């Protein structure tokens, strides 16, 4: 419990665990962890979409643009290239784990313990 006069670390405190053992839903604990992250992200994507919708509606209400203009927007060559690159980079970020697993299958690295032992000898 915080003292009354210290500022609250609200980010840390907000994630406090509820007392009572949490059921394990999957045989693999990592799956339980993955679910908590994926659905928190899903909530965040939903909130981002809502914020973008608010922006579009406010901009339209003030005559800055219409939402029809957004739907009909066609990027020119340069904008299309920039956006394509950004999408590629994004996919690379979210798919890193899969991509590196494929690389690893090709590389056939020995277990790290083998390297540890070898370097301790050689």
């Amino acid at each position: 419990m915080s003292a009354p006069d210290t500022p609250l670390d609200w980010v840390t405190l907000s994630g406090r665990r509820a007392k009572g053992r949490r059921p394990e839903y999957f045989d693999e604990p990592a799956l339980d962890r993955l679910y908590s992250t994926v659905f928190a992200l899903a909530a965040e994507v939903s909130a981002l979409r809502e914020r973008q919708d608010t922006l579009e509606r406010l901009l339209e209400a003030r005559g800055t643009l219409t939402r029809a203009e957004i739907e009909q927007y066609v990027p020119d060559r340069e904008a299309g290239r920039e956006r394509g690159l950004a999408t590629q980079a994004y996919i690379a970020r979210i798919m890193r784990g899969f991509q590196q697993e494929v690389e690893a299958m090709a590389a056939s690295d020995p277990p790290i313990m083998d390297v540890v032992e070898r370097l301790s000898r050689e």
Partner: protein
Amino acid sequence: MASDLPPPYTAMTRHPMMPRVNHDEAARFNFLTHFNRYLSGTIGAGNKLAYEKRVLPAFRAEHGRDPEHRYEIRDAMNRDPWHRTWSALKRNSMEMRQHFGRQVVLRQLDELDAMARQYNEHSGQLELDPAIAQPPYQTAVDIHCQPGGYHGEERPGDVTVGANYDVGLFATTGGALGGLNDGGGQAVVAWVKAERPDWSPRRILDIGCTIGHNAVPIAQAFPEAEVIAIDTAAASLRYGAARAAALGVKNIRFVQASGEDLSRWADGTFDWVQTTMFLHELSAKAMPRILAEAHRVLAPGGLILHIEQPQYSDDMPLFEQFMRDWDAFNNNEPFWSAMHGQDLKQVMAEAGFPRECQFVAGVRAVVDPEIFPPSPDKGEEDYGRAAIWNAYGAWKPLAAEAQVAA
């Protein structure tokens, strides 16, 4: 299916004590509101399909009979991949609701605490008693997975748990409780006004009031009455009293007291004793003690009324009982299962309310239908979270009637 759309979070009434949400915080609650409806509706059906298509046939093959208790179904369903997946989703939804609500509350706790203190100092509607111990059924686990339960503190004298309860209830109930989360209390008022149009109770006791969201509408509906709302949890009462004062409701007092010991009130003090979604958060020994105390402080001719989800009876299919039990094991409601398995009429009879004076009535949340669509009629689809309840009640016999009955 536009009529099924829940209202946006911003439809909530922004009373002065309600924590302020920014754009994205409201949006996160919107996500949860829709997500919960999706889990209970669209893909909730998967549980029954999994049961009928593979879990029940496998059970029959193994045991040569049908399940005889909801716990047998639970053991079997807890091995089913779909039910485990669905439960993991729902548990995460509950945890997110707490996390999101606590972020809203804790980042503005200084303001909320200061405002609550100011309301409570000026209104005189809060009476705390540090001698009141938290009962074991409130401290064994954090009920609803709300960190700190109803009573925990982030720092002395704070309102975190009460404020978090108020700010996020909308998301858990899919917006079915109305702008002030008071659809349950409004339902009680509507039932009483229809049942006894000319009744004007003078003193009303609400046991286990938490933040008073269901007691305040009773006070509003009976402005001449004095409403006493009690709870063991000071942290919830601090918020609840400030909330009532902020709403301008003056004929209600929030008193820290346990329903198990109402000795500060003489026999027959109250014309009406109310509990709303409270009995299932007790324990096997505490419930009869509280009902006996309620009977003692209730005046002859007075009303006792408990709002709960339906009890499990022999008429209720075991699969439905199992689904309604989900919160007991997955959302920290440890008395839910045992309480709903009891014959509440018998429990009330043992507390002193003769069976012939008892009744059970169906009530549903009363909300502004322009903004808040009514709860779906098929309550069983929500398995315990629809805003449709049973009212278990009794009119306490007058002394002469009691003698005849005896």
